[in-house]
């Protein structure tokens, strides 16, 4: 076997012994369904590590997402395989908030101070949509993040 042949054998071996799992591939094919061109993307601008907020589980993190019009601060913590979000909108405002993930959506409401919270979310990729009631009315979506 020359190098080219050995390489081609290895390609076949890797594809057979360690293929992309079918479920992961199917989820990738379906992920185009999350396309949301009409909403503004709020980009993650910091992910500092916080002091452990719980005695058990992983420490919490404060994620800050920004667009021109709004800042979304999220404190994300995870315990026993479930995720808790505490959110703060800046400027503070009442708004409809949706937490989206591959396993479903959770509708929330930010109060007049721009605060919202969700518990018992499944551990996995998620993002937060904010439809503020203000005059601009633009929907803002955070980048996907992983608790």
């Amino acid at each position, binding site marked *: 076997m020359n190098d080219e042949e*050995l390489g081609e054998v290895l390609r076949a071996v890797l594809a057979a012994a360690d293929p992309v799992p079918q479920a992961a*591939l199917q989820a990738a094919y379906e992920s185009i369904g*999350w396309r949301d061109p009409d909403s503004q993307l709020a980009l993650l601008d910091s992910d500092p590590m916080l002091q452990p907020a719980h005695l058990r589980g992983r420490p919490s993190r404060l994620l800050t997402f920004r667009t021109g019009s709004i800042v979304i601060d999220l404190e994300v913590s995870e315990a026993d395989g479930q995720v808790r979000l505490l959110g703060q909108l800046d400027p503070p405002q009442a708004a409809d908030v949706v937490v989206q993930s591959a396993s479903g959506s959770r509708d929330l409401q930010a109060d007049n101070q721009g605060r919202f919270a969700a518990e018992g979310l499944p551990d996995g990729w998620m993002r937060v949509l904010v439809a503020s009631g203000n005059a601009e009315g633009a929907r803002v979506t955070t980048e996907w993040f992983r608790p």
Partner: protein
Amino acid sequence: MTTGLEATICDVADFDPVAAVAAAASGDQRAWEAIVSAYSGLVWAVARGYRLPAADAADVFQGTWLRLVEHLGDIRDATKLGGWLATAARREALALLRRTSRSLPVDDLEAMFGAVGGTSTAVEDELLRTEEHQAVWQAFGQMSGNCQRLLRVVFADPPLRYEEISAALDMPMGSIGPTRLRCLATLRALFTQTAAN
């Protein structure tokens, strides 16, 4: 929704990333499936190259595609899509390693998680039809992490262009050739040894 099978059957050589990204950005499911089919091997190779267990690699895989959907509208040069995906997958893999073992800096993590895979299980052996293939898989598992990572990307399925390999490995194109030669020589030596036993 189609199953993705048609896209898989599509001739990979006909795949045009520029047209596919433009169509997918306006919601074309078939074009999106063609993109996933063309680069799923690359994204998986990068994730597994960090010695991530299958569940974590699947997490990185999922995050990388979500990231692309999010940024479909602002890919400037879709001819570099493979490089874009490889970089995104690498970033997600390192982020996952940081999340799961927080106190270690990236360099230590890379060293620690250096080598991937290796020991073959009964299931894998069953998937590998011939003794030769089993011996190659076992030999692969005995190689250094750096060689495993490089060879996974160089021999990803479907195959990649050189500049995509370079981006996936974060290595200049000029040093891939010599490293590839060295790693293949190591693989051959280990394979010959395994086959002799």
